[in-house]
């Protein structure tokens, strides 16, 4: 079967897998999550913060409490598919603060399994093609074995195409792997980190890792060329079935998301609206969410940034805030919410 590649060569040109694995990425989730989708996120959202958390502590209870406290309804979950998406961009055992700790992933899996869902863990590491290595270096592989959890290598699965619902970048659509397309809920499970280009990476940016390297490259340079802030919003707008559970127990500051230093915070942050979760994380890190490019683009479209629109559950963010070191670079200087005053004497 010879085909004329010129008809489809442009990245993003609509193509559908002949196996018709497209089941739609939002319809089922809208009912499950109990909120309406795109354009309706300006309403108040809840974000749960738990402090004094440890990787060997009762994380399952914390996550369950957090989900229930932020309005998550587990009743429809039996028989549904939940995809847990940790961050394993470029794992190395030398820098565990780079990747989501396996204990948090296992705890979340147990929460959803006890609620009757079928749970899969999936990731498309952005910088490495050897996903087995990523599992080994992040220690997630052995944890998945212990927890009898299946893993989906999102870099190499069959793909389906969806219209770009965000329309902030020029990409007409996005390719998602089978496990993402078929999930009823995608749980973004990032590590709370600084990011040397866009300030911070938490639950919205973590969904870069739902896009397959086989279509976008290693790194996913198609997205970079289309605009990082714009594509972060586009991915999340096109995948309106995500909730967030953030590993902020040991975080990364400085030259994140790869080369930064560990910053212990002892937090787990949970919410059904990733934008509200990320805005809260930004405040905790000492960043002004409205100055973070992709959060600004998401404001009102994917969720709220304003404090008055985010109901804090558990600990107030002010009580746990601790400014993160960020690189002293021109493009990052304006992100901080409280700049030191100019020395006058």
């Amino acid at each position: 079967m010879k085909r004329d590649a010129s008809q489809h060569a442009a990245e993003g040109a609509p193509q559908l897998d002949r196996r018709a694995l497209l089941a739609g990425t939002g319809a089922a989730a809208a009912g499950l999550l109990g909120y309406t989708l795109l354009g309706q996120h300006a309403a108040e959202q809840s974000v749960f913060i738990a402090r004094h958390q440890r990787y060997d502590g009762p994380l399952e209870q914390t996550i369950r409490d957090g989900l229930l406290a932020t309005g998550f309804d587990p009743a429809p979950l039996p028989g549904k598919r939940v995809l847990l998406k940790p961050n394993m961009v470029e794992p190395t055992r030398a820098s565990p603060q780079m990747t989501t700790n396996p204990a948090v992933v296992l705890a979340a899996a147990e929460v959803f399994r006890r609620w009757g869902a079928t749970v899969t863990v999936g990731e498309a590491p952005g910088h490495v093609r050897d996903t087995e290595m990523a599992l080994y270096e992040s220690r997630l592989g052995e944890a998945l074995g212990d927890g009898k959890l299946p893993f989906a290598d999102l870099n190499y699965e069959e793909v389906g195409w969806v219209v770009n619902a965000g329309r902030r970048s020029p990409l007409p659509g996005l390719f998602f792997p089978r496990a993402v397309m078929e999930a009823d809920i995608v749980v973004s499970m990032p590590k709370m980190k600084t990011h040397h280009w866009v300030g911070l990476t938490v639950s919205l940016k973590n969904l870069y890792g739902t896009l397959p390297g086989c279509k976008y490259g290693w790194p996913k340079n198609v997205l970079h060329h289309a605009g990082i802030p714009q594509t972060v919003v586009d991915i999340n707008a096109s995948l309106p079935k995500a909730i967030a559970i953030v590993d902020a127990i040991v975080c990364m500051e400085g030259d994140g998301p790869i080369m930064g230093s560990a910053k212990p915070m002892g937090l787990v942050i949970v919410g059904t609206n990733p934008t509200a979760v990320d805005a809260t994380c930004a405040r905790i890190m000492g960043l002004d969410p409205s100055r973070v490019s992709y959060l600004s683009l998401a404001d009102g479209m994917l969720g709220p940034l304003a404090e008055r629109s985010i109901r804090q559950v558990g600990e107030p963010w002010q009580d746990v805030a601790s400014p993160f070191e960020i690189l002293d670079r021109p493009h990052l200087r304006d992100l901080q919410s409280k700049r030191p005053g100019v020395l006058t004497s």
Partner: protein
Amino acid sequence: MTWIDTTIDELAAAEAWSYRAGATPATEPTALAALTLGVHGRTEAAERASRWLVEYQNVDGSLGINADQDAPHWPTSLAVLAWCAADAAANGSPRYSENIARATRWIDSVGGKPAERTADLGHDTTLIGWPWVEGTHSWMEPTAWCVLALKASGQGEHPRTREAVRLLIDRLLPEGGANYGNTWVLGQLLRPHLEPTGVALLALAGEEDQDGRIAKSRAWLASGLGPTTTAASLAYGLMGLAASDEVPRQADRWLADAAVQTRTLVGYQPRLTLLTLAALGAECPLITLPRQKVHG
């Protein structure tokens, strides 16, 4: 029966080759299968794999990633290598010359998107190699694969090949090793990884550099491989070393252990294929094909 025999039997018996059992047949696993099946004398199965690649070659010479997705086209270079291997084994009766010619013309027609040099990035952003996806920057592995394909097809001295070799050397880290293709970013030196280092050293076999980064990369690779190295990283790492006849004495043991371990994960077939290629040592076609054309 060794793990190699078992793997080759499985590959030969497969109806098609994909990233995981039952999934859409894909170009990269098929090209790798063609390479190892041919070396192991499974001529019929190797031919079947090569013909699959012909069937899915686009009109412009490129190949997409699988039977359903005719873009992006980064696996085109792998198909060239598979066809070159088939023709090299054809005793003077090449069957894929036209496919190779069209594919290499396509390779020559595309390149990574250069950028003005900036202090934010350590590498020479003006050098042009190959991208994963057209319209984006040049990166390590697609560039290395295209260099191998061009060398294997007798175009080792082509200006595009030579520029790409310079790019690969430029992207090696100062103390050795490579990652996906960045060296310094915003003043920070990045970490190397085994797999891209191995692929880069395959493409750089026989090349020389001014500041010893190739030798340092070999040394880094030799020190980084071990009994817990995962399959793809181990396979490419060993191939990268074998390209300069530096195979660690424990290689066979590591390969056998990796073969057992990788079978515990979904989608193991392409990784096992890589292990069988690495087990060939210096006789791996990814080493012999470019060498024959350049030096023979």
